[in-house]
């Protein structure tokens, strides 16, 4: 057996190991070691828990079998998932943490003696608040992540679903939720507990459906944060330091990522969460510009331009992920490098469907990470670059963000693609991007539009090089 004090020390150690796991991510070199710390921390927490419970009868056997089943499923997914599907994978994983938190809370509610929380029908008030908060946040994370998953996977349309009075309904549900927690503490009636969980499930769905596809980076980060707060809530209930530390780490991590994503779009968090962008304010800005001439190019033109350039900056976006064009892109860059062209990559904070999405795809295609730059690092270089190759990005390059105060994306930091000598814009059609506004860049003199699938066009350029 193991004393309660020693157990607490071990949980503290695994908490510290988790902090080191995140610390490792400050640079790619230390990141792998950090991940190892995380794994050790987890193994430690699980082992000491099993030893402390000290029940090595049938239950232990079931535990091992379930760990094996869950572990195999997890391992299988981890190795099979294509990198382009990473956003929906993360959303899916969040839903599992949320549901696990709900289940643990239910278990603690039904059998509080096990966790020293009192007797059924007479649970300590503080514990009751903690477990109902943990369960509620967990339930919101669960259904919210499922909606995010369905949207990212394309099973559900990415367009926002809005209806009259939506926000008031959510507000009402939130108030009901708080009152129910209050009543639960007062009466200890289990009906309230189940109602809290059900309402939270509903609220999770309602919170995410009005948020559109390209705002998913914020949503995923937010759900990441929620899953942390849910874990912390359960940690308080179970009086477990490892869970409290981890919950706080994950909660603040998700919150910071949401903040970075919102800043990348120059929008407030509430503006994103309340949703419906692009559905309402697109009409006024883009009507008059429909018939402007664009310069239309083909793969040979693009190959010629880039071959004779001395520096090229690649600007990837979600379209690259959709077309799975990252490998072809790398080959094109290799061919260019052989011709002595200097090539770098510029990544906007909100490119793709989750934070760092483009970086992972480029890393997958063996692009060295020291050729990939963030917005602030590279934005001044566009003025000195010969060709900007925009592949699957759109709104994040739109100069309107700097010039037109009427535009919904006004003030959003953009990549200054228009400053480069010529711009190659790979796109399937002239249709506006997610924000629903026309991109001024299409009609500039130095822009050559390449109308094709991102992958196919890139492959054609390789042939012409």
């Amino acid at each position, binding site marked *: 057996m193991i004393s309660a004090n020693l157990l607490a020390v071990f949980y503290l150690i695994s908490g510290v190991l988790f902090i080191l*796991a995140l610390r490792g*991510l400050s640079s790619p070199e230390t990141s*792998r070691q950090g*991940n190892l710390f995380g794994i050790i921390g987890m193994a430690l927490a699980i082992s000491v828990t099993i030893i402390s419970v000290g029940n090595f009868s049938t239950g232990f056997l079931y535990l091992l079998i379930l760990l094996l089943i869950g572990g195999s499923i997890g391992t299988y997914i981890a190795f099979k998932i294509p990198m382009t599907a990473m956003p929906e994978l993360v959303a899916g994983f969040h839903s599992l943490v949320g549901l696990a938190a709900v*289940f643990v809370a239910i278990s603690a509610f039904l*059998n509080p003696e096990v966790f020293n929380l009192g007797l059924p029908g007479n649970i300590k008030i503080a514990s009751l608040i903690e477990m109902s908060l943990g369960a509620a946040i967990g339930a919101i994370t669960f259904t919210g992540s499922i909606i995010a998953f369905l949207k990212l996977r394309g099973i559900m349309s990415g367009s926002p679903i809005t209806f009259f009075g939506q926000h008031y309904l959510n507000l009402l549900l939130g108030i009901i939720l708080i009152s129910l927690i209050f009543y639960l503490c007062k009466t200890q009636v289990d009906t309230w507990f189940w109602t809290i969980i059900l309402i939270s499930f509903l609220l999770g769905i309602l919170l995410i459906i009005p948020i559109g596809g390209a705002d998913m980076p914020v949503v995923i980060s937010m759900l990441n944060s929620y899953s942390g707060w849910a874990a912390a809530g359960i940690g308080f209930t179970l009086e477990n330091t490892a869970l409290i530390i981890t919950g706080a780490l994950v909660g603040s991590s998700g919150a910071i990522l949401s903040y970075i994503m919102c800043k990348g779009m120059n929008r407030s968090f509430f503006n994103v969460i309340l949703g419906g962008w692009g559905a309402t304010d697109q009409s006024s800005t883009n009507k008059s510009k429909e018939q402007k001439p664009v310069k239309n190019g083909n793969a040979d033109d693009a190959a010629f331009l880039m071959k004779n350039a001395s520096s090229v900056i690649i600007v990837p976006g979600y379209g690259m992920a959709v077309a799975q064009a990252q490998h072809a892109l790398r080959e094109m860059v290799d061919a260019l490098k052989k011709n002595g062209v200097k090539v770098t990559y510029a990544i906007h904070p909100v490119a793709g469907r989750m934070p760092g999405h483009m970086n992972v795809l480029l890393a997958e295609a063996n692009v060295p990470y020291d050729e990939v730059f963030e917005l602030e690092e590279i934005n001044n270089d566009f003025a000195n670059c010969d060709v900007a190759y925009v592949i699957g990005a759109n709104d994040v390059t739109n100069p309107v963000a700097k010039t037109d105060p009427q535009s919904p994306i006004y003030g959003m930091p953009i990549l200054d693609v228009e400053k480069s000598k010529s711009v190659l814009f790979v796109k399937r059609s002239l249709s506006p991007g997610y924000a629903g506004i026309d991109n001024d860049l299409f009609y500039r003199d130095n822009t050559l539009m390449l109308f094709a699938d991102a992958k196919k066009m890139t492959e054609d350029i390789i042939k012409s090089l």
Partner: protein
Amino acid sequence: MEIDPFIFRFSIFILSIFIGYYVVWSVTPSLHTPLMSVTNAISSVIIVGAIIAALAGEAGNIFDTANIFGFLAIILAAVNIFGGFLVTQRMLAMYKKKKKDKK
């Protein structure tokens, strides 16, 4: 007067938020996706609650409703732990520096 142990846990919680704040700001933006998958994996430490819930109680009566919810939570958390850490490992393995001798 004695301090309620809750206050100690709450202190740990608040200080951990600050640690999280500073540690996460120092994460390089190119590793934000692995950051999400690894935070996802570590938040599955909730499995310790699931293990206690599942294994506690009399040895003969392991299939109480409370135990079953514990077992279900174990499977969910296990998927997440293995899936989360391994997919992070897979991603991190792809981040490479420029090779000096290019083939």
